[in-house]
């Protein structure tokens, strides 16, 4: 499987924190998610990957090339949506389209305006009169209208109402369906993007704590719900996360096969149950520590 993006050992010092030795790969045609708590470094990472900010050390290869030598070509083929879209406040979307059309080799004006219509953004309104969500949608429309093969989106669902968020998720699925485009998304996991991400990277405190296929994670991570006292301390100690609750405890583990024997008696007597863990649960276990 081809990789459209390869980051190796990225390091960047930022105001309050740093990216340290961040490496990740993005498979061609996939929807790849970078998740993590606030200030984990997601925005900075995406900026570096989209050549919006320089890195201090490390390497980034996109579509087989590097920004140092092929910035123009790559920026044509990579669409970027920043967390805080910036536009010329006194100008309209139409003005921006003309601006963009001058530079992008494959600008699709018709597609752009049709997207604006779907997104309900008035192309004749000055940007300063658009809401935050609408600016986001404008940014999205721009990124989707210049024939980009790789889309790098920073919290694309933030600020969008339920309807637009759903339509965005559907759109991302649709454009990657034939494998011709790849999407890299950064998000707080609860934004619905965990539903569509195939590859998952967890970023915490500037470091990659997990980089795996979503399917694999869903298979390996499980909750063991059990009645207090039905599992002994030794087993409890092996859970990645343990929660004691009034009507049953639960432990999170990614190594159920190893624990199966010990848990079997409780399972058989109905004092324990195995259940799926969500991506959010898994991430939280890394963030809180235990």
């Amino acid at each position, binding site marked *: 499987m081809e990789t459209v993006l390869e980051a190796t050992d990225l390091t960047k010092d930022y105001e309050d924190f740093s990216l340290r030795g961040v490496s990740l790969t993005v498979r061609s045609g996939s929807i790849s998610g970078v998740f993590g708590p606030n200030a984990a470094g997601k925005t900075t990472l995406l900026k570096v990957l989209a050549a919006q900010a320089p890195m201090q050390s490390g390497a980034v290869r996109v579509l087989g090339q590097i920004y140092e030598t092929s*910035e123009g070509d790559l920026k044509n083929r990579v669409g970027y949506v920043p967390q805080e879209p910036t536009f010329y406040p006194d100008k309209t979307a139409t003005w921006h389209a003309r601006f963009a059309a*001058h530079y*992008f080799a494959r600008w699709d004006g018709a597609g752009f305006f049709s997207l604006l219509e779907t997104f309900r953004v008035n192309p004749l309104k000055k940007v300063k009169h658009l809401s935050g969500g609408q600016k986001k949608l404008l940014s999205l429309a721009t990124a989707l209208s210049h024939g980009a093969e790789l889309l790098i989106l920073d919290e694309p669902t933030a600020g969008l109402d339920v309807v637009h968020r759903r339509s965005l998720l559907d759109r991302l699925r649709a454009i990657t369906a034939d494998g011709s485009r790849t999407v890299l998304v950064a998000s707080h996991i609860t934004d619905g993007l965990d539903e569509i991400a195939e590859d998952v990277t967890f970023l915490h405190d500037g470091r990659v704590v997990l980089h795996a296929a979503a399917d694999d994670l869903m298979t390996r991570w499980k909750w063991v719900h059990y009645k207090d006292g039905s599992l002994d301390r030794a087993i409890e100690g092996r859970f990645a996360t343990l929660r004691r609750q009034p009507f049953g405890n639960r432990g999170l583990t990614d190594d159920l096969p190893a624990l199966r024997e010990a848990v079997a008696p409780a399972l058989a007597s109905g004092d324990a149950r195995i259940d799926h863990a969500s991506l959010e649960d898994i991430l939280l276990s890394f963030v809180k520590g235990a």
Partner: protein
Amino acid sequence: MDPILRRSSFFYVTAFVTYTGLMGRFMLTRDWPAFEVIPLFLPVWLISGMLASEHDERYAFLRTLPLTDRAVVRTKFALILSFVSAAWLLMTAVALFRMGDGVATPSTLVYVTLVCASALLVGALYQIGIW
């Protein structure tokens, strides 16, 4: 025309026209040591033109375009250079004209050139500072 150029040149052209209109007129008509004081307004006009142009400039937007930083900076420097050059030409022409009635002297030309050179330097530094 390059959209960046088109947007920014509006401010520079406006600045130039107002400079010409106001200061140029003084240089042409006044006897008072016009050429000692008036050229000093040039850097002021340049900076205010730059301020107006850069106030709404959106480098973050430009960075998403297939445009190298170098190309953007080249455009901006070209504008500063054009502005200062045009102003220099204008002031030199007026100075030459006024050598006839003794208001300007050859040292005036040197002075005007020096002021323009410094304006260029100030402008360039300011641009780098912003960027």
